[in-house]
């Protein structure tokens, strides 16, 4: 049981491999493709930042990794593999064995992601006991160790606290302790800092990086905050309307964004020292996923779009140096 997580990840290839993943929700107006065939992978110990607006499919694709696409949605195509284990081929009943053990998740709002009627310690102990054999005392011991490792002062005292007795930052630390209790290979963080104020946000980011150094897990870090992503991620994947529009190393994407959507996103971030003017916005709204334009999904809002963009959808191609973008214009430009 524990051998999988203790084995060195290095020689096993990527921790997570997603191929042509498609997630569809049946609606009254027809099937809605929330994720429209995306492929990516994360290597051991690396952090992939996933950026995009609300509704671009970033959370749904993350939930798909755990087999937790909210019904009535379902994975309608593609494969997801944790190491060599194909999650998408697994039986529903076998999934709990990998959740928390090989892949865990932390959520945006730690107040609602922790059960209000159970003490924080009990919840961490439960996460441990779900995958490890041991007595209640062992579980308690493991939970106390985890509380200490996520730098919560007075673990013994905090063990008995209920979520409402903790601050937001403390709760998110507890959430991280719960997620890492069994030492998973992959941690999926769905906007873990969005609900926190800026100083606490920085502390949580720092903690996550320290935990990564200690536990060696890979992280899929979902956010709409480019600043936060630039701090923590090794690679960045930008999603739009259920598709990946650009994917590259953090360095490449921030120094040289190639997709017009990525560029537009970066212009919407206020800069320190810049003259106070109205912040630029991206014209238009996210397209209706039930009624996508026939060509590039961004063509309606793209300043560079021409007839060709509106007729055929670009594929995600390497522009050189592992910098991928799905845009005819940037592909024409060359690297």
């Amino acid at each position, binding site marked *: 049981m524990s051998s999988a997580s203790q084995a060195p990840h290095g020689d096993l290839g990527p921790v997570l491999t997603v191929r042509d993943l498609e997630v569809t929700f049946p609606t009254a107006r027809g099937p809605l493709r929330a994720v429209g065939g995306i492929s990516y992978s994360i290597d051991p110990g690396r952090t992939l930042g996933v950026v995009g607006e609300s509704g671009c499919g970033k959370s749904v694709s993350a939930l798909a990794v*755990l087999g*937790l696409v909210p019904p009535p949605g379902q994975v309608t195509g593609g494969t997801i593999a944790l190491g060599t284990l194909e999650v998408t081929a697994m039986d529903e009943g076998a999934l*709990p*064995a*990998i*959740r*928390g*053990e090989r892949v*865990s*998740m932390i*959520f945006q*709002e730690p107040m*609602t*992601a*922790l*059960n*209000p*009627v*159970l*003490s924080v310690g009990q*919840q961490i102990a*439960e*996460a441990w006991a*779900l*995958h490890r054999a041991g007595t209640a005392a062992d579980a308690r011991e493991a939970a106390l160790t985890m509380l200490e490792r996520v730098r919560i002062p*007075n673990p*013994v*005292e905090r*063990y*008995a*606290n*209920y979520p*409402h*007795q903790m601050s937001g930052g403390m709760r998110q630390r507890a*959430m991280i302790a*719960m*997620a890492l*209790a*069994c030492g998973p290979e992959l941690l999926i963080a769905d906007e873990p800092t969005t609900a926190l104020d800026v100083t606490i946000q920085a502390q949580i980011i720092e903690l996550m990086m320290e935990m990564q150094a200690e536990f060696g897990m890979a992280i899929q870090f979902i956010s709409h905050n480019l600043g936060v992503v630039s701090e923590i991620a090794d690679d960045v994947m930008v999603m739009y309307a259920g598709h990946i529009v650009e994917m590259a190393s953090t360095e490449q994407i921030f120094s040289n964004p190639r997709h017009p959507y990525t560029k537009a996103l970066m212009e919407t971030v206020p800069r320190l020292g810049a003259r106070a003017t109205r912040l630029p916005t991206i014209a238009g709204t996210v397209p209706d996923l039930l009624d996508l334009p026939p060509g590039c999904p961004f063509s309606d809002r793209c300043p560079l779009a021409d007839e060709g963009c509106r007729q055929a959808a670009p594929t995600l191609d390497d522009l050189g140096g592992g910098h991928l973008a799905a845009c005819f214009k940037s592909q024409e430009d060359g690297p």
Partner: protein
Amino acid sequence: MNAAHHAMTKPAMGARTVWSLFFHRLGAHRLAVGSAVFLAVLGVLAFATPAIEAVLGVDANLVDLSRRFQGPSRAHLLGTDELGRDLLVRLLYGGQVSLFVGIVAALASAVTGTVVGLLAGYYGGRLDAFLMRLTDGVIALPLLPLLIVLAALDLTKLGLPESVVQDPNISLYRIIVIISLVGWTTVARLVRAAALSVREMDYVLAATAAGAGGLRIMAVHILPNVISPIIVASTLSVGNVILLESVLSFLGLGIQPPIASWGNMLTGAQELIWSSPELAFYPGMLIFVTVIAFNFLGDGLQDAMDPRAIEG
């Protein structure tokens, strides 16, 4: 102050604030407190009846035709009934039966209702549809005729061993089973409704993402969050069960004499209502007051356990 000392005091304080808040709010509900005290006294007296019999030197089932219809006296504090039995201890025995049937049947109904409600609310879909139609079906059953039929069932035909059928308390068990079979629907609906909202909570998703299975989610994460409607509804249903038991016993289908119950005491008293009204008055009044006390207590618990107050 050392760390160990901290560890000992702080959690206890946290736990105490939740409970002190609960008792504080319950205490503000005068009727509920009064009802709780009344029920506690009734309960203690009812279950101490054998001792009271010994102290007073009377026997609840001793027929003494020379002492029929006596008024209150030193020997019989409330007088005697039409067979010369002591009225007070018979009332207390009746209370024992009523409280026992009420509480056990309400608990059994609560357990069944909770299981049905959790399964329906958490899994949803077809299971939910099936269980809720079943619940609707049980609710739609004409209750009294059904209870009468069930109460008239010949238990030997059900294949129960002779020793069980001959048990003097069989009418007691039978009535508990009958009431539990039909009494779970309220709790089932309440729990389902609560579970439907709780299962959408992030902490249920978080627990699922940590690898918890369905049973564990229901028992550890959903149940504690829906416990207050269960407690309130069950308290209220104790009153209803006592009424139902009285009705069945009054009709001669519930608790069989010589075991005293408030319902069958009323049956015996109905022919004598003009000559000895007190024989009907005492059990009738006790049923009334006890049922009302359970209702007040239920209301008080509902106010005291309002989750918005506890979490805020």
